[in-house]
């Protein structure tokens, strides 16, 4: 449309071909598997969108307990404490570690929530009447897919701490339910992002255009 670079291009779909989502080679639609990488070939469609929504909903669902339940259970000689993600960030802030608090907050709250919104937006908003054009949407998709793994930073911290700090009765750190929930939430949103077929961005765009 407005992007001059895409105007003269012919998409695989327009050519009646199916592109491999893994290596990008195009095949005839009769083929079931990619002749180059043996990945299953399937045309972009509703099944893909269902998977996106399903993973997204699952991610959001498990994200709720991840924030309610304690992430870390710390038992020392004198006391026992449990801290949630937000509670931990606030505690860090109270102790003056604003930088660390910001990292925890961004990695554990902002990024996952941003991902939910971004995926939801991409999955919903496939019509051209939106703020973003195809290229921007595709870039957003790339960012979401790239950044998703970094949300695991909290889970890694918990995993490392629980592995290291097992000092008998002096100090023990155990992961809480939230750690599992959070890891699942990140995994689900990553799957959701992967399930989103970027070809649809282009296909839907094309559908709008008068053929």
């Amino acid at each position: 449309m407005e992007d001059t670079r895409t105007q003269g291009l012919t998409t695989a779909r327009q050519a009646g071909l199916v592109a491999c989502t893994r290596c990008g080679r195009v095949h005839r639609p009769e083929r079931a598997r990619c002749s180059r990488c043996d990945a299953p070939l399937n045309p972009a469609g509703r099944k893909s969108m269902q998977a996106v929504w399903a993973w997204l909903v699952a991610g959001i669902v498990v994200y709720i307990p991840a924030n309610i339940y304690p992430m870390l259970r710390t038992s020392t000689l004198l006391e026992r404490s449990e801290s949630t993600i937000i509670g931990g960030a606030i505690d860090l802030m109270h102790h003056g570690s604003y930088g660390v608090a910001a990292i925890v907050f961004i990695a554990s709250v902002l990024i996952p929530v941003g991902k939910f919104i971004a995926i939801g937006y991409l999955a919903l908003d496939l019509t051209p009447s939106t703020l973003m054009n195809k290229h921007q949407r595709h870039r957003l998709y790339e960012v979401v897919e790239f950044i998703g793994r970094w949300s695991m930073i909290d889970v890694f911290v918990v995993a490392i701490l629980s592995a290291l700090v097992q000092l008998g009765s002096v100090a023990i750190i155990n992961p809480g339910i939230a750690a599992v929930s959070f890891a699942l939430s990140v995994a689900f949103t990553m799957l959701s992002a992967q399930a989103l077929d970027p070809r649809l961005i282009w296909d839907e765009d094309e559908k709008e255009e008068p053929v």
Partner: protein
Amino acid sequence: LSAPTPAEPHVTPARRRRLPSLSFVWFVPILALAVSLAIAWQSFADRGVLIEIAFESASGVVADKTELKYRDVTVGVVEQVAFSSDLTHVVVGVRVAKNVAPFLDEDANFWVVRPEVSTQGISGLNTVLSGVYIEGRWNSEAGEARTEFQGLDREPLADGTRPGTAILLRAKEGNSIVAGAPILYKGIKVGAVEAPELARGGDSVVIRGFVEAPYNQILTRNSRFWDISGISVSVGAGGVSLDFTSVASLVQGGISFDTLVAGGEPARSGQTFTLYAGPEEARASLLEDPSASRLRVLAVFDGSVAGLTEGAQVRFRGAPVGEVTSVGLVAETEGNRRVVRLQAVLSLRPGRLGLDDPDPVESMDFLGDLVAQGLRAQLSTASILSSDLVVNLAEMPEAAPAALVSEGDSLPRLPTVPAEMADLNATAEGVFERINNLPVEELMAALQGLIESANALVASDDTRQVPAELNATLAELRSLAPGLEKTLTEAQGTLSQTRLIVEDLRASGATENINNVLTSAASAADAVETAAGELPKITGRVNGLVGKAETVINAYGDSSRLITGALATLRDISEAADAMRTLARTLQRNPNSLILGR
């Protein structure tokens, strides 16, 4: 260009095929939701019950940190620390594990465990590092669960969970017993007591105690408890002995018990025992059956009942048959006069009076018959050396008839007779009383008065004047003596002159001279007469002096040597004066006796 055409039919059936059936991927969010909900439900269901415990103070209790422990196992965590609506209590909200909550019924007790150093040791040392915790104790029977509890200050003794017997001790005073004081059996600590509380009526003190198993097997209904608090110092034939059981019992007080009579049925939980002042009293009480019925009568005494105390014995023919339970004043109307009398409530044991049947009505009838036969209450001293009084039930058949009367709903009134003086006199106290009653003070006052009046007599001017007057009298006598001497010398001179004349007459014999002689003799006689005429005056003066001196001396008394001497002198003077008077009279009557010598 024909390429796009075959692509369309391939897509459309695929769409139609997939639309009615949902993708299996949807199982994932459904599963996630189910798991999340399950976790949420489980944690909600396992969340436990919030109970509220009201404490006087909650020092050291921190929300989300302080734990509730049962048998040293954490069963809950304090969720909130707040005040009661009127700020009188601290209300601690504790989330208690669900499986424990049903057991929290009315027998549940909660208290805050803090480090504590007492005479019996150090407790709660683990809380120094970990902070205080709330300890709860309840029995293993689930009752009607409650959510609001009253917290205790300290660990309760009897809580229904530890084996043992809770007992109730009834004492007159609780001033020597402190909470936590030990109960000892033959010197071994077998339990403890709580702080004494006033009994409901306020007339005695109730102490809750707990005797731990297995020592509670020793405890029977015949067990006797006594106070071993403090130090006892006794002076006896063996010297002075200082006795205290333990330092703890010295500071906190202590209670000892013994079961001296075998075969009593074991004590129930909550059994009430009397706390006696000492082992002797406790043993003495064994001889009495505390459950025997009592006859309560009034006795109103005239005069002082000093020495009559609660617990004083009531004796009948010397044998104790009861005791005085209270001594008080009572206002009465006697004729048109209102008087206040001393009233004692006597608690009599009919069994001691020889009645087997404890039927109170019959016992009272029996007592009434005894009164009709002359039974009277009388105060008497308990022993020779003590001032304690006992009430003696004396039999006085000759006493004025009286009856056991009860006015209104008050207790029957036992007639009384005044205490016998002989009874009092027989005692050392009576002796002291008699000494006390001697008019020593009057005697002393009289003596003092005597001395004072003697002093006054000596000091008075009159008395002082007596020696002065005597002196004056003597001086007067002295001054008189030369006069007398002169008179006597004159008289002697006259007599010798007369003798010379007579000798001249005898020698000469001349007649012519006789007239001269006679005239001169007459003049001499005249001179003698004038001298003699003056004599009565002198004699009168001397007499007056003597009388005066005598009165003075009489006033002075007659024991003084000076006075004796003075008296003798005066008597001599008196005799001299008498002689003078005789001489004067003889001369006046017969002047020529001077001449004739007869």
